[in-house]
């Protein structure tokens, strides 16, 4: 069972009250979690703003009223079956952001109301604020059973040297694996706009979380161990979240949607730029068959391909006899090799299309970036 989580609010408000100090706001995130007390002290020391003034600023606005109601009702909401998280956000209606502050309830999957016990139904309002239910899928933050280490063949190519700040396209890996590729660097989906509480490296589960066989907080090396990365000198980040891979068993073939994970690093050591591609300019939510795509990866460097299939169901080998079924995948002509896993695949206008994770001598398989963002709760752009 995955642990349930909640969002903390407050950063967005701080971003609004200190618009002239972007660099300082960024450095504030180095304090890590959402401890408002630390923020208070920071602002007092840095700007001579009194703690009371900061608190007043923080406590203004409907968002804080919603946050208070959220806090008061969190336990009640999280106790409901299928609820995996609670946050503060906007009411989304017919796919459009209404701008109305609401309590956002995250569920592992949306189920027909008729199938839910009355006590587990999400109320339409909580203390006058509307609720908004968002389906996230299952997100685990823990370890699964011990899995056999994957053996990968890694070619000898560039992009395997140590680089700071770390960029997309370069070698990376959990300390127990060989090496994969950094997609790009990302941040939390919420608050937006606002001050992201953390910054991360994005790559695959099998690169950063050793195919489920990892613990949150495990060291992530840049370059990856196969490329000479070692603990402690090459630690770039710590495993933060991963979407567990569900492997097939006789009579059991669940759909996976992503092989994805993120590791938290220090802002000043992470760069969103992707070697030879540049910065992601948009998210391409509607790639089409025939579209040209590109990626930079640790093994085959900069390559291009063409989308040959969408909405694909694929059985992927993970070594050691393990196979996982992936649904709604994007397939391209071959544009990758072992060690390129984790590369971000973009269209030729730098629109993110997906996360490369598997392939053969003829094809490359990519997770849709929309699923990656949604299931890891991260944002690539802007």
């Amino acid at each position: 069972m995955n642990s349930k989580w909640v969002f903390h609010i407050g950063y967005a408000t701080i971003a609004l009250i200190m618009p002239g100090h972007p660099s300082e706001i960024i450095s504030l995130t180095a304090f890590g979690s959402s401890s408002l007390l630390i923020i208070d002290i920071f602002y007092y020391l840095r700007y001579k703003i009194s703690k009371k003034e900061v608190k007043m600023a923080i406590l203004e606005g409907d968002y804080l009223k919603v946050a208070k109601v959220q806090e008061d009702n969190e336990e009640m909401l999280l106790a409901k079956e299928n609820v995996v998280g609670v946050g503060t956000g906007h009411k989304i209606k017919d796919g459009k952001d209404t701008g109305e502050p609401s309590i956002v309830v995250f569920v592992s999957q949306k189920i027909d109301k008729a199938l839910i016990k009355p006590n587990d139904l999400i109320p339409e309002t909580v203390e006058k604020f509307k609720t908004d239910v968002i389906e996230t899928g299952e997100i685990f933050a823990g370890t699964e059973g011990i899995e056999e280490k994957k053996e990968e063949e890694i070619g000898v190519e560039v992009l395997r040297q140590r680089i700071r700040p770390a960029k997309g396209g370069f070698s990376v890996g959990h300390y127990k694996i060989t090496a994969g590729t950094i997609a790009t660097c990302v941040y939390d989906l919420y608050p937006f706009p606002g001050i992201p509480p953390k910054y991360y490296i994005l790559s695959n589960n099998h690169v950063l979380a050793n195919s489920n066989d990892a613990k949150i907080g495990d060291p992530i090396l840049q370059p990856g161990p196969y490329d000479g990365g070692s603990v402690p000198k090459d630690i770039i980040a710590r495993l933060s979240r991963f979407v567990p891979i569900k492997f097939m068993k006789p009579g059991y073939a669940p759909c996976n949607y992503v092989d994805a994970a993120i590791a938290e690093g220090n802002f000043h050591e992470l760069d969103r730029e992707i070697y030879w591609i540049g910065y992601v300019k948009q998210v391409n939510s509607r790639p089409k068959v025939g579209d040209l795509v590109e990626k930079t990866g640790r093994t085959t460097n900069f390559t291009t391909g063409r989308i040959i299939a969408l909405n694909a169901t694929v059985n992927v080998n993970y070594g050691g006899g393990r196979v996982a079924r992936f649904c709604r995948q994007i397939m391209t002509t071959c544009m990758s090799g072992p060690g390129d896993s984790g590369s971000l695949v973009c269209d030729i206008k730098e629109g993110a299309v997906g996360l490369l994770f598997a392939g053969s001598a003829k094809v490359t398989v990519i997770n849709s970036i929309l699923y990656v963002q949604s299931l890891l709760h991260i944002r690539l752009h802007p």
Partner: protein
Amino acid sequence: MSIQEVLKEIRYWIDIEGVEAIGEGENCIIVFISAENEEIRKKIPTEYKGYPVKIEVSGIISTQ
């Protein structure tokens, strides 16, 4: 019937030994197989509910 609905209906083709993937191509269904194999070709129709079915040899698909 949309191609998405057809893909759902034929998802079980992935359980045919040697089939690696099934997806939506340009106005067609694409079936990726691990190696050329006449037996697989016999099991998969050349057209299904109005959509042409193309077979492509992909090789075995593994993580990279």
